[in-house]
């Protein structure tokens, strides 16, 4: 029998893209949070940040907010797995002659693509607000956006694989998302923070996404862009493996 794997992955990806563009209210709704952060923090803290010698705060903040919106959208896309299980569509994919790994892969690629699109929209908004990125490095920036998206889509799918209902999922996601976001260096530099906070930031995947985006767009970062890229790639593989393992155990 000829293998249909690549086309099946494409089909599962396409389904998510279609659903994404069909839910315009969701797209618009999820832009609210990053805009509030950008405007409230960007204009509120801007002068304090500059006085403290941090430079232009919008330049510092924008990559962090782009990373945040990608991460939130990506983790949250895991809920589609729970939806699909509750509304039955998951059975249709599970009974098709397609391996679980391909299903997981197609879903993750789909969720990661829509999260990246979300990130690009936020990126354009930051430019309107005053962000001045190095346009020559836009490709690197996109790569990091997609990296963050894949890592956290796999993470969301992994959590969703172990959850029965949406409430449980929402609870866990909120519990995890907020600390990861605040302790990633997205809003303020953590170089002078207490040791334990620096330690969390060190093992926090989002830190490397934020830092990589900063390196790409502004050239100012903690790690070199190569280190950030390698760490993100490593975590991507790790989360994909764990996510696949958990997804493999899902019963329909």
């Amino acid at each position, binding site marked *: 029998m000829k293998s249909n794997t690549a086309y099946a992955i494409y089909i599962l990806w396409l389904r998510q893209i*279609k659903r994404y563009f069909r839910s315009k209210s969701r797209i618009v709704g999820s832009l609210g949070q990053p805009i509030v952060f950008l405007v409230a923090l960007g204009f509120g803290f801007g002068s304090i940040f500059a006085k403290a010698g941090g430079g232009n705060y919008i330049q510092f903040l924008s990559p962090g907010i782009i990373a945040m919106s990608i991460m939130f959208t990506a983790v949250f896309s895991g809920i589609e797995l729970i939806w699909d299980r509750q509304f039955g569509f998951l059975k249709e994919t599970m009974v098709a002659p397609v391996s679980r790994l391909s299903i997981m892969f197609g879903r993750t690629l789909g969720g990661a693509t829509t999260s990246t699109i979300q990130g690009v929209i936020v990126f354009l908004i930051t430019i309107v607000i005053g962000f001045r990125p190095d346009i020559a490095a836009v490709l690197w920036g996109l790569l990091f956006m997609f990296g963050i998206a894949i890592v956290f889509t796999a993470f969301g799918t992994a959590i969703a694989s172990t959850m029965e209902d949406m409430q449980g999922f929402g609870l866990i996601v909120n519990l995890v998302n907020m600390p990861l976001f605040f302790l990633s260096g997205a809003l303020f530099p953590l170089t002078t923070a207490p040791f334990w906070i620096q330690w969390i930031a060190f093992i926090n995947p989002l830190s490397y996404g934020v830092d990589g985006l900063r390196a790409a767009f502004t050239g100012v970062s903690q790690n070199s862009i190569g280190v950030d890229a390698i760490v993100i790639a490593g975590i991507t593989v790790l989360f994909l493996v764990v996510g696949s393992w958990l997804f493999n155990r899902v019963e329909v």
Partner: protein
Amino acid sequence: MVLFQFVMPDSAISVKNLTKKFKHSLVAVDDISFDVENGSVFAFLGPNGAGKTTTIKMLTTLLHPTSGTIRINGMDPVKQSHAVRQSFGIVFQDPSLDDELTAYENMFFHAGLYGVPRKESPGKIEDLMKFVELWDRKDSLVKTFSGGMKRRLEIARGLLHTPAILFLDEPTTGLDPQTRNYIWTYIKKLNEERGLTVFFTTHYMEEAERAAQRVAIIDHGKIVINDTPANIISSSGTASLEDAFIKLTGRAIREQEGTGMDQMRTMRQAWRGGRR
């Protein structure tokens, strides 16, 4: 339309000593054996909780048996899951369509997942959607469909990769009598004109009696009898399948026509619980 792309053994389905025991639970399917002849219509009749869905899940690769053997078109669902999946179509007990997509998109995605050649799939989709009389609604979102329309679309979708067997898990539960009639007309036509083997479960007596060449009555995970409807009636010395069922199992199948699935499940559990 080519239906048989596989080398066919005499039995489309062959099951021997099949058992499924869930963790922390009773034995849902208890040492059952049966054969379904190629090109026939076979009914699995039993009350709610008898083990019908569990059996279908094992036949269709979604659950691994605790013990026993299964052959679907001569293949083992555990070891040759992809080949087996390619060889049957299924309509699940609960809806499994993507509500946010159009009817056509649901068909299109199914064709993609099953590797239906891209040159053939538009024609096939059109054929089948016309067959279930949904072609004029092809661009409507599925969430605007009635229960009966969803069922018809699921039947069309299940046939898209030209399977040799169609599994239907309580295909008419929750539908009004007129829609139920429609569904049976389609299924009969598929069996007679295209030689499709049909395996369906039901808790409606008259459906088993009318539509199936053979009926297996399943109760508490065991097959009580497996014969033609006429033989079941005559050998139990009763006037109808309904009376035969009561005689064989010691109770009646209650037809609970609840509106929502959930309501039905609660009632079913209360009913079963009360009997123990």
